[in-house]
């Protein structure tokens, strides 16, 4: 059998196959583009989230910010101990307003609360507070 007999079909079929291959190439490009795009977007979001969380919980100005816990109440009512990145504070005879203000400050400061112990004694409050960062 001579191929020349079927050369017309051969031309049509070979170009058709070429077209299918080109379509597959395009399809693969689209799929890999979408996958890569998803992966890059996911990694970017992950990194941005990580950076944002790190910025919150390893605030470089934290040493200044926690000083507020000491000065927000009269110094006579505070017993303060700071070691490395840990604080132990004891408060005695806090009024309810002082306690409120102190608690609000603690809540708004990015420190890890390890202990919070509030006890009412008569009309005032005693509080023990430990945190780290």
């Amino acid at each position, binding site marked *: 059998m001579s191929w020349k007999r079927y050369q017309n079909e051969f031309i049509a079929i070979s170009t058709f196959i070429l077209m299918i291959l*080109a379509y597959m190439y395009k399809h693969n490009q689209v799929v890999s583009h979408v996958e890569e795009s998803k992966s890059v977007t996911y990694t970017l979001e992950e990194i941005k989230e990580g950076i944002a969380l790190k910025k919150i*919980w390893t605030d470089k100005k934290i040493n200044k910010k926690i000083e507020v816990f000491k000065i927000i109440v009269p110094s006579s009512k505070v017993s303060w101990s700071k070691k490395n990145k840990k604080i132990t504070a004891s408060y005695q005879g806090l009024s309810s307003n002082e306690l409120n203000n102190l608690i609000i400050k603690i809540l708004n400061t990015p420190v890890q*609360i390890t202990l919070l112990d509030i006890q009412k004694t008569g009309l005032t409050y005693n509080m023990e507070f430990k945190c780290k960062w």
Partner: protein
Amino acid sequence: MNFIRKTKELLLAHTSMQRVTLSKSVNVMLTPQFYTLKKEELPVKYAYQAKKIAPSLFEGLLEDGGTYDYIVFKEGDAWVFIAYDIERIRKFLQSKGIAIEKISKLFFAQQSVNSFTTPLSLSDKESLAVIDDTVVVVPSIALSDKGQSVLVFDEKFTPKEGGFSIKGTTKNSMITQTQALSLAAIFMLFAGIFMVEGSRYTGENQVENEELQSLYEEYPALENTSTRKNIIDKYKNIDSAERKKRDVIKSLSKMIFKGVTLNSVAMNEKSFKAQFSCIDNDVAKRVKKLAKKLHYNTSKVKNSTDLTVEGTL
């Protein structure tokens, strides 16, 4: 050096020809036995325009059942129309041992009308002659020289132009060469479009990749996937635990209203416990309801209206 174009052997195909054996490709000239000819003077300028009207010119002249193709060329002021049945020609040539693959080009005798200066004998009974500028088959007996022609048919009869190939229309082909080329052109066009579209997707994520690279440069530790995961997990855990603690403190503070006094709060990294002093049972119930809503455990202190609220972090 030979500047003369080398012409292939020209074979005259007529119904009374002998069977031949070919070793190399040849050109074939067809006698009027294989085509129908018509001359018309038409007000058209181009051959393709004339070709469009060819089928209507031959209406009623051609045998039924055939599939006809047409060629058109100009002779002086007139257009020459030739209708031929390629299948019939093919069958005839094959019956005479002429393989289609061996045929380089097909010509019609009319295309070399000027070469037939004298009648050309085809057989004892028939000759080719030119009458009114048209090549026709005539009975030899009607000719004055009784077929004793000295005209030798050879490659000098090959027209300079106008031949066509029979190879593109082989019998076994389901499609003609023109159709095949048209399809190929369409497929190639689509293939080109797909290739261009596909290549356009290369480097589409450039902006995101650049942003990613700049972040990697700023925070090299985050480039490694497992290190990044560890760092992110660490801060996510801290974040969720600390947010929970703060939410608990906020929700406990909401339980302090008129008639409720906070007695104590104890919170560590795993749990919390708060004790409220309530003025009466109704207030205690209200506090309990609020605590239950937040899924905290509640318990009443014996012989009092005090309430203990506790839970895990």
